[in-house]
């Protein structure tokens, strides 16, 4: 009878395609919105992941996310180096500073200052030049991917910022674009520039004896959890591993910006629309075939077998619709991601979508079954 069930489903091409389209639409909507949400969440931790040479970040206990840097005393660096289990510790400057481009336009940029001696915490990939170029006078590293967009010189006809251009910080401190880098795409809009720690403190108007972050590397074999506890107990600051800081940043951004609610609602909407469209189509399909189910019942098909037929039909449209929907979402997502927008498709989203489609199909099939199983076989004579 599986063959009969499939022929009933596939025989009417229009209804079948409508069913597939409904499920595909739901699967695509759920996958795409969830993929964008996860992509955005992933981008919030880009700076932390790109600064992963160390194991632990020391920060003010009030810091909520990576761009929320608050100042610590400079002396903390030396105290951290003396804590048992610490291999090395370096300062990392982070702050928002106003930067004037060569054409006179001003931009707020994120300035990252790397330890002068080791340049620890630099970008993951250099495009033009080397990280060691930062040791040149007034050197500045700029993100290569935004030199012709966010950092383009609008008053000079949109000319891209280029190596050798001079920029000014806080209207007095000059820097020179010396090299370019490529980093992970960040959730935060402001361009990020790298320089040395000492130069960063000159560029930015900040307290002279304060540092936003200290990066700590654990000695081989030291348990990171134990070390963070020891650092917090001995230094009175907050110590977070890269993963913990990343997670805290993601959680803060998702909760405080309303992104989670907005995209969560979009995912829920996708589910609701999919459930309604696909559910109604499957239900109508069953209603259209009700008299044939009645005939099958009269001819000796048991309720259990009818149930199997309806579930098989739901499973087939569910599986095909899921495949098409997820495929479309992945294709669109890849295009979107190439254009620079956020999209990630971890296996958990595939499972979530599969679960949602399963619920939609089971609910629709349940609705259909309530009609099929209650159907009196005698109705075929009416």
């Amino acid at each position: 009878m599986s063959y009969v069930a499939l022929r009933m489903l596939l025989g009417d091409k229009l209804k079948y395609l409508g069913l597939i389209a409904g499920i595909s639409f739901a699967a695509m909507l759920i996958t795409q919105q969830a993929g964008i949400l996860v992509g955005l969440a992933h981008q919030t931790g880009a700076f932390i992941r790109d600064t992963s040479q160390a194991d632990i970040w020391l920060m003010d206990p009030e810091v909520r996310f990576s761009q929320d840097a608050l100042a610590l005393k400079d002396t903390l660096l030396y105290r951290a180096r003396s804590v048992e289990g610490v291999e090395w510790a370096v300062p990392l400057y982070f702050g928002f500073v106003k930067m004037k481009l060569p054409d006179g336009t001003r931009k707020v940029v994120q300035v990252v200052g790397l330890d002068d001696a080791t340049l620890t915490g630099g970008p993951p990939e250099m495009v033009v030049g080397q990280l060691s170029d930062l040791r040149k006078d007034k050197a500045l590293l700029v993100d290569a991917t935004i030199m012709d967009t966010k950092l383009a010189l609008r008053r000079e006809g949109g000319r891209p910022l280029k190596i050798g251009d001079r920029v000014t910080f806080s209207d007095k401190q000059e820097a020179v674009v010396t090299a370019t880098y490529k980093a992970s795409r960040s959730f935060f809009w402001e361009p990020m520039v790298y320089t040395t720690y000492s130069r960063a403190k000159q560029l930015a108007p900040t307290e002279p004896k304060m540092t936003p972050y200290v990066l700590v590397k654990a000695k081989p074999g030291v348990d990171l959890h134990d070390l963070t506890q020891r650092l917090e107990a001995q230094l009175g600051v907050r110590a977070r591993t890269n993963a913990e800081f990343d997670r805290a940043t993601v959680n803060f951004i998702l909760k405080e910006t309303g992104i989670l609610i907005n995209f969560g609602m979009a995912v829920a909407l996708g589910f609701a629309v999919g459930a309604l469209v696909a559910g109604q189509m499957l239900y109508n399909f069953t209603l259209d075939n009700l008299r044939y189910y009645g005939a099958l019942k009269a001819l000796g098909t048991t309720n259990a077998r009818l149930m199997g037929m309806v579930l098989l039909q739901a499973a087939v449209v569910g599986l095909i619709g899921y495949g098409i929907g997820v495929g479309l979402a992945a294709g669109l997502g890849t295009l979107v991601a190439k254009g620079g927008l956020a999209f990630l498709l971890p296996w958990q989203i595939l499972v979530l979508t599969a679960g949602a489609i399963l619920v939609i199909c089971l609910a629709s099939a349940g609705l259909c079954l309530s009609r099929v199983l209650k159907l009196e076989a005698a109705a075929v004579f009416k």
Partner: protein
Amino acid sequence: MREMEGKDMATATKNSRSDAKPAPTGLAVHCRGVTKHYGAGDNKVMALRGVDLEIAYGQLMMLVGPSGCGKTTLISVIAGILDRDEGECSVFGVDYETISQRQRTLWRGQNIGFVFQAFNLLPTLTAAENAAVPLMILGEGRHSAVKKAEDVLARVGLEGRSKSLPSQLSGGQQQRVAIARALVHQPRLIVCDEPTSALDEHTGHSVMRLLKGVAMAEDRALVIVTHDARIFSFADRIATMNDGVVTRVAAPDALTH
């Protein structure tokens, strides 16, 4: 599942042999005092008010009477797709009330063939696949079932049309497919509801000759509900119903004279 169904079938057969009341000798269908109502309260309608009917083995019984007199309700009760309220009714010795709904469904699949007025052919199945449905319900593989159905289709004059969809067949051809479906699993009782109502006289007679020729045998019976006086002559007996009771059972000659 098929094993289970086989077990259920065995139980149903056992019930028919031992637990159920034995059918009177020579009777395929035995109904006595059968009542059936629809609705409740002010809307209660008595469809059957105490029907007595006996159909012998090898007999073609026609049920005639005005619309709403209970003909369809009676064949539904006889076919086991509708529960009676009161009275006795056994088909080949099986009283449906002594077996479960599931057993009844399985028993029906094995022993009863249906020809519906509206044919109820599945529009997405070919003629052969439609005719093969009862065999597939009984668990036979599709290829073997379709092969047998093609043989039956040939017997009803539809050789060469086995791969046609119902929409590609005329009304008469669709009726023949419906008849093939009713015959393919060699049921002992065939129940037909207005099998000729949509057909012209020539095709109607052809269908009746077919039914009588192919379906009838000593161990079988045929019940036909009809308004079509043109086919009365094919009946062995004609039961006239009025207002929920059988008022007369007679040979066709007696009725037409």
